[in-house]
């Protein structure tokens, strides 16, 4: 550190009398450099602290308001932040059958778990094949997926709805219906995991193949054990995705409140039903959704970061 600080702090003085060039280390400059550094760091700390407050504030507010009693105080939006009296009224309401919150929560959990499993299998199959194998039609498949990806997602909403309706998977059957929709085209999101497979040396496969291993064996025994980060990333994405889907979920469940997922249910509490009573309940419901997902996310954060950065760099 000290050495680096000194290097640029050299004044070059040409000594005409002696006819030489001298390097002078002015001591005051060294000190001012350090002071400058300290001031910069201090201002960075200030900025980072402000940023942190802005980033955390909404979540702190959310938690605070979820503890406001809707019986003794107001359940809607009020002009103060910290509840006069902390209570668990809203959380108690969530666990009553009339609120249907538990039902929505289980629905979403089932969808998320099933999606995480099937989606991972689909995505890894497609990306493995496109990364490791060369066959007729490979380029065609990749170009086709690229072109299909350019269509906006909600364009096909009605078509999908009626497809599901033909299969009897709307309203009452919304849960399997949603799983089907989420999972069916998930192979199109192969890019990030293909990028990962591309970095595993092909010589590994080839030497195994020479020893007589089948493609399936190579996939199961050589590639998969090396791909733990990307497998976890894919599972994480598959699991987190369904929690946030409002659009398809509300369209497919259409009017059947037993088939809602949490996003649809809470969105209704926030927007279409009586806002005054349901605002703090929304907060409580939101907290209960956010906690497990956030914990899961932070446990697996390393894999998420690898996936995101890898995806961004390779494009």
């Amino acid at each position, binding site marked *: 550190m000290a050495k680096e600080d000194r*290097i640029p702090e050299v004044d070059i003085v040409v000594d005409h009398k002696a006819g030489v060039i001298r390097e002078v280390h002015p001591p005051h400059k060294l000190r001012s450099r350090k002071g400058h550094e300290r001031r910069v760091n201090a201002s960075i700390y200030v900025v980072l602290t402000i940023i942190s407050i802005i980033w955390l504030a909404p979540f702190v507010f959310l938690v605070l308001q979820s503890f406001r009693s809707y019986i003794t105080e107001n359940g809607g*939006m009020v002009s103060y932040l910290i509840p006069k009296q902390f209570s668990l009224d809203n959380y108690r309401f969530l666990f009553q059958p009339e609120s249907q919150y538990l039902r929505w929560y289980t629905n979403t959990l089932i969808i998320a778990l099933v999606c995480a499993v099937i989606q991972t299998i689909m995505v890894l199959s497609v990306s493995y094949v496109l990364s490791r194998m060369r066959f007729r039609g490979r380029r065609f498949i990749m170009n086709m997926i690229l072109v299909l990806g*350019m269509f906006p997602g909600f*364009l096909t909403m009605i078509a999908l709805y009626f497809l599901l309706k033909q299969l009897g998977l709307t309203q009452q059957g919304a849960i399997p219906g949603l799983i089907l929709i989420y999972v069916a085209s998930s192979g199109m999101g192969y890019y990030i995991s293909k990028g990962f497979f591309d970095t595993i040396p092909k010589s590994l496969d080839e030497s195994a193949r020479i020893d007589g291993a089948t493609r399936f064996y190579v996939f199961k025994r050589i590639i998969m054990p090396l791909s733990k980060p990307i497998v976890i990333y894919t599972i994480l994405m598959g699991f987190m995705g369904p929690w946030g889907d409002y659009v398809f979920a509300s369209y497919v469940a259409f009017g059947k409140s037993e088939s809602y997922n949490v996003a649809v249910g809470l969105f209704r509490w926030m927007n279409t039903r009586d806002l005054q009573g349901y605002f703090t309940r929304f907060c409580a419901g939101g907290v209960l959704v*956010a906690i497990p997902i*956030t914990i899961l996310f932070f446990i697996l954060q390393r894999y998420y970061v690898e996936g995101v950065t890898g995806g961004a*760099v390779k494009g």
Partner: protein
Amino acid sequence: MAHKFARFFISLPGRLVRGLLTLVSWIGAFFKKIGSEIADIVQTFVHGDWKTRVSYVVMGFGSFARGQYLRGILFFLFQLVFNLYILFFGGSYLAKLGTLGTVQTTTKNRVTTYGDNSFLILLYGILTIFFIIAFIYTWRVNIKQNKISEQILKSGKKLQSAKDDLGAMADSQFHKTLLALPMLGIFMFTVLPIIFMVLVAFTNYDYSHQPPGKLFTWVGLSNFKTMLSVGGANFGSTFSQVLLWTLIWAFFATFLNYFLGMMVAIMINKRGIKLKKMWRTILVMTIAIPQFVSLLYVSKMFAADGLINTYLLKWGWIDKALPFWTDGTWARITIIVINIWIGIPYLMLIATGILMNIPADLYESARIDGANAMQTYAKITLPYMLFVTGPYLLTSFIGNINNFNVIFLLSGGGPLSMELAGNAGYTDLLITWLYKMTVNDTNYKLAAVIGIIVFIITAVINLTVYNLIPSVRNEEDFQ
């Protein structure tokens, strides 16, 4: 970068002509291929034995007769299913595809007699066409199989047994095993619906033509004319306004987040800054918590009776509530600002990874040359970041054009405006407008038109990227 763009646009006409020529040559090659296929089919029939000839009518007969029972049965089953499908289901839909149905649904004495259902005719009509193409392909494979089998037997070798076939599924044909299910899913739930919706853009399918009560039919390009016409408070001018805002939004959402996110990353990663992990974790909270919780809550925070307004009023900083969501311009700015809150963490993560990869000696020599912080940023960090994240920037631009969640959860596209048609609001993107058209107005024909236009915009941007950045193209180089 700038001269690259310029060069790209100068060379555009040349590229277009070349592209067209390639297309023509592809079409030529396609017909040539069809010709040679037909010739081969005839040849196989003329020179083949009786087993092969029967296979022209009964698929899989040849395979079965030569002892490849599994293949024979599968071919035969496929043909059976296809014939039954066409006979009892697909055929009738296919026949009505030209008109999308003519028999109206009528109600007489409270008894409804259902006529044709244009929706199902269109959907199953497309499905039937695809089934027919698949059948022709399989039929061709069946004939080829016969030809190959004959040759193998003639040369005195043995045919593949069913066991060999199954073994190949895990080895030489492993890609087919792995791709079968994903491709079927993509086909049924992406390709089919997309083709359906593209065709809907050429019909009059809307609230007054809703099956099963009413029929809809082909109307040619009239929906595109409605959407792209100019003048007055109609769809044409609304479309151009929404499009303009979509592009402005995408620009700010991409580049503002990009530079601010990079700055935050540089600050956190600066030497001497402690608690790096803590700062990062705090920012990443917005990624971890589902958007419908955080964004809905934030949108209520900015409401007229929300926390921000009530506190500003209480402290006496303002006299009346700030119109965050009720004034068009305010709403647009608010959304862009809140989006920074969502976007910075992603960029921070990405930039952190890249910043660590910048060779440290670059900075070292810059310091020796006496460069200050701004200069090192402009000459080293920024060019390096832009170089590495070039593809990401442009894909995220496209992502923002289609950024439904942020707009929908924050403002719902509002505030509404009398100047805009089709219930569009000031903050509506094309994609949220499409959603409103589908769900609220059931104006499917125009929703389909918007979808196609978004596709065209995306495709143009993508093609530009593809031509400007060679690293996207040279897939094998990377490996």
